[in-house]
């Protein structure tokens, strides 16, 4: 009996003290990123230029979706999430997660995230109201859901009347192929490729851009890391922007990026071609009063989630 009680008390004390221990003088920086989502700074990642620039080892971990990045950041396993989707970030901030948005990784048209209607259904932009009453696959809580909502506004269909099914992109593509759904909204090069094989984009990349639908991926960081290592964060963002500038100048090593993104060079070039990497000045503008600011406002994001002070001048 005494042993049991002392064991229980010991366990309670141990658990109570298991509050994350301060890690102020970071010995490594842990960064989250996506596969199949090529970015110029992956060249720096492979060549260990980040490690050199930050002065400490940088550990990269790939994730399947932005929500998981948030989870890992809150659990204290990730310091910086690079190219997290804006929607998962907003969901996290809305649930009071101590995260900050410090940079825009890229803006992209519907190239990377899109809704595809199956050819068999015969639904196009012109008769999109026929989607009402039918089944559509949408990965809820992601950028794809945002693109879905906005596209429906553009084509004049009522989301409330559709049968929206929660499906991850790979499954959404499979369901579109098997004819279970008439439209699937998805992201990720391979999923879109599978879906487009049996269907077509509801809005072309250009149409979506004209309608002002664009995806924004961001760099988010835990409050703790930001406070503890402002210098490292600044350097991280600086190196990323240098890589973007190098890409803009056509000097990036595409083979290295493709290999790191685990894509074929051709597919990779197509995907990255749909991304717009902003210069620091453009980023600042977007964060303060441009696309990003509008997006955040449109989604009722609490104020104070954005910090522009780490952008390179």
């Amino acid at each position, binding site marked *: 009996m005494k042993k049991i009680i002392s064991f229980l008390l010991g366990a309670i004390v141990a658990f*109570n003290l298991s509050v994350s221990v301060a890690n102020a003088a970071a010995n490594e920086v842990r960064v989250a990123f996506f596969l199949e989502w090529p970015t110029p700074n992956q060249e720096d990642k492979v060549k260990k230029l980040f490690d*050199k620039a930050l002065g400490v080892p940088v550990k990269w971990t790939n994730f399947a979706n932005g929500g998981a990045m948030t989870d890992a950041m809150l659990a204290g396993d990730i310091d910086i999430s690079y190219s997290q989707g804006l929607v998962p970030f907003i969901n996290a901030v809305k649930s009071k997660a101590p995260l900050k948005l410090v940079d825009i990784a890229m803006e992209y048209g519907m190239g990377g995230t899109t809704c595809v209607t199956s050819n068999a259904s015969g639904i196009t932009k012109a008769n999109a109201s026929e989607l009402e009453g039918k089944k559509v696959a949408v990965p809820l809580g992601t950028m794809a859901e945002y693109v879905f909502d906005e596209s429906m506004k553009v084509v004049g269909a009522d989301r409330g009347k559709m049968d929206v099914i*929660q499906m991850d992109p790979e499954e959404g593509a499979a369901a579109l192929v098997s004819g*279970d759904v008439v439209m699937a909204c998805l992201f990720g090069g391979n999923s879109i490729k599978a879906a487009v094989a049996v269907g077509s984009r509801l809005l072309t990349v250009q149409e979506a851009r004209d309608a002002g639908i664009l995806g924004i991926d961001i760099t988010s960081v835990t409050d703790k890391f930001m406070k503890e290592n402002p210098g490292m964060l600044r350097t991280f963002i600086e190196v990323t922007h240098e890589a973007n500038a190098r890409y803009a100048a056509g000097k990036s090593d595409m083979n290295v990026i493709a290999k790191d993104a685990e894509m074929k060079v051709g597919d990779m070039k197509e995907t990255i071609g749909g991304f717009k990497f902003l210069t620091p000045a453009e980023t600042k503008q977007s964060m303060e009063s441009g696309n990003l600011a509008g997006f955040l406002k449109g989604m009722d994001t609490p104020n104070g989630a954005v910090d522009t002070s780490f952008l390179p001048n």
Partner: protein
Amino acid sequence: MFTKIITFLIFFAVVGCILYGRKLIKTEKVDAVFGNPERAKGGIHWVIVGSSFILLTWLYYSWDIAKAFYPKAANELCQVGKVNDSLLSLKYLFPIEERQFKSTFVIKSENKNIDKLAKEIENTTSLKNQDKNKLLKLIVKTKNTIPLLTNEKLLENENKIKIKELTNKITLLTKKFQKTSYPEETAEEESKRIEEAVKEGEWGASGTAVEQTIEIPIIPKTKKGLKFDAAAKELKIISDEFFKLRNHNPKYKNAMKEIKDEIKQYRSELDETREVASALAKDILKVARRIEYASIFPPKTLDDMQKSLIEFDNVQKKEQGTLRFVDVFLFPSGTIVSSGPSCSEQGSGRWLPKPSDTLNKFVLLLKPSVGFKNIPLIWFEMMDVSKIIGFILPDWLADIIPGKYPVHSQDGSVKPNFKSKVLNIVTGEFKLFKIPIPMGHIWDSFLRVFLGLVLGIIVGVPLGLFMGLNRFAKGFFDPLIELYRPVPPLAWAPLVISVLGIDNVGKVFLLFMVSLSIMIISARAGASGTQLSKIHASHSLGASRWQILRYVIFPNSLPEILTGVRVAIGMCWGTLVAAEFLAGTTGIGFVENVAKKYFQYEVIWITIFVMGMLGLLFDITLRKIIDKTIPWRGKG
């Protein structure tokens, strides 16, 4: 209030039951030796202690006890969090919570990096000697900028004054902070603040809406909170001012400029063939820039500031008073953290919602008008009986009736004929009377499990019995079953959408796969376990094959079969969640999956409880059935 009473009740229940248990041991007869099952009989009081313990742990680690007894604590801790938040950046510079000065750490690690870089340059064979020398010279120069920053004599007067000023500000704040009158607030301001605070709501108001709303009120409600709030604001200004300071004396600035210019010029001179040298030069520049950006100060310069910070920290801890103990003891494994414009629970309180909030939200979700994603958890809808008739009667009945379906006439009307009327009936397109039909997330999940289970029993039990009695059946099906049985049901999941689609068919199929193998195994074991003497007896009494099966073998295997059903139910619930993760619009698993994406922890826990409860309900029902239908269990 409710939580308070519950907490006390639980506490007294635990104490009372433990005392009772000890008394019982003393008064009990001692003739039951160790190993005698009698010793495990009874003991309701330990059941109470066990379940109370779970509840107490939940109440404690979700910080619901804190909320019940100190409802203001969260708001006050939020203000304390603001102070910590403002202090954080400054504190990291000093060995207060760290082992060493940030400057020391930066210098140490940069020296290491410089040495590493120098070694790399020396070892790079593709570099020309002249490049090597040039780069090494640059490295030495970079290294030499550090002493320029750490030399006290070089520290500019202006910076000295500024540091002193900031230190004084902190000391002044420390003094002010201890006074009861701090901060000065007019009656008007006070009433306005209180009015706003009331409008903001109480801690944990998120229980009243499905979406996350305000979690912790940030406007200070109490005098103590206001104090910390005001101090946090002042500290933030001090901290910002400090980080604007740059210990860049003219000598350092010159040295730095020299390095920058030299590297720039050097790199511009390099042609494409000497890219390695260019990259290395850039690396050197990066180190130099890192040193430039880090707040490196001479070793003794910030001593006073450190002292004043520590002093303030001690004072603010003292001023917290009882709040500190509340924080330590009632907010286990985490605390309230302020970040930017909001405060939040970080730690176990974040992912373990409070029982009271969870209950509130559950009641809210149960309301049919709210539900989850516009579908109630469990409710009923009125459905016309005609729909059921339409479902049962096959549509082709109308097709085989001679004649043709009506064609529209010239005046644009369609006249129904007998054939179309039959079609209406077999497709359920007519009105009869309405009956209530259950619907909603819970019902859908329940139905899926039920269908999977029933199908598994219908197919599995006869097959199992057959395999237990027949050599052909055993030999024929055995390899098939044994091959598929060890496969975890979720291994089918990736195929299900492609093959069976996203409707209920796929999900029920997964559950069917689960229950089938269990039912086959248990029925087979039951059949082959029948005592031969019983079969012989019935034979000699002249029973037919069917009678032997019906009256001897089946009743004998029933206990095994029903145990199999119980196992299968558990497995089915386990698989259901994953099956509903796949693709869904309804179901408990769907609710959990979507709630996860929006970080709605209360909803996640609700789904977990609902599943536990439903599983328990199934099991209890089955136990009752077992007791009723097979009283001979364990006696054959």
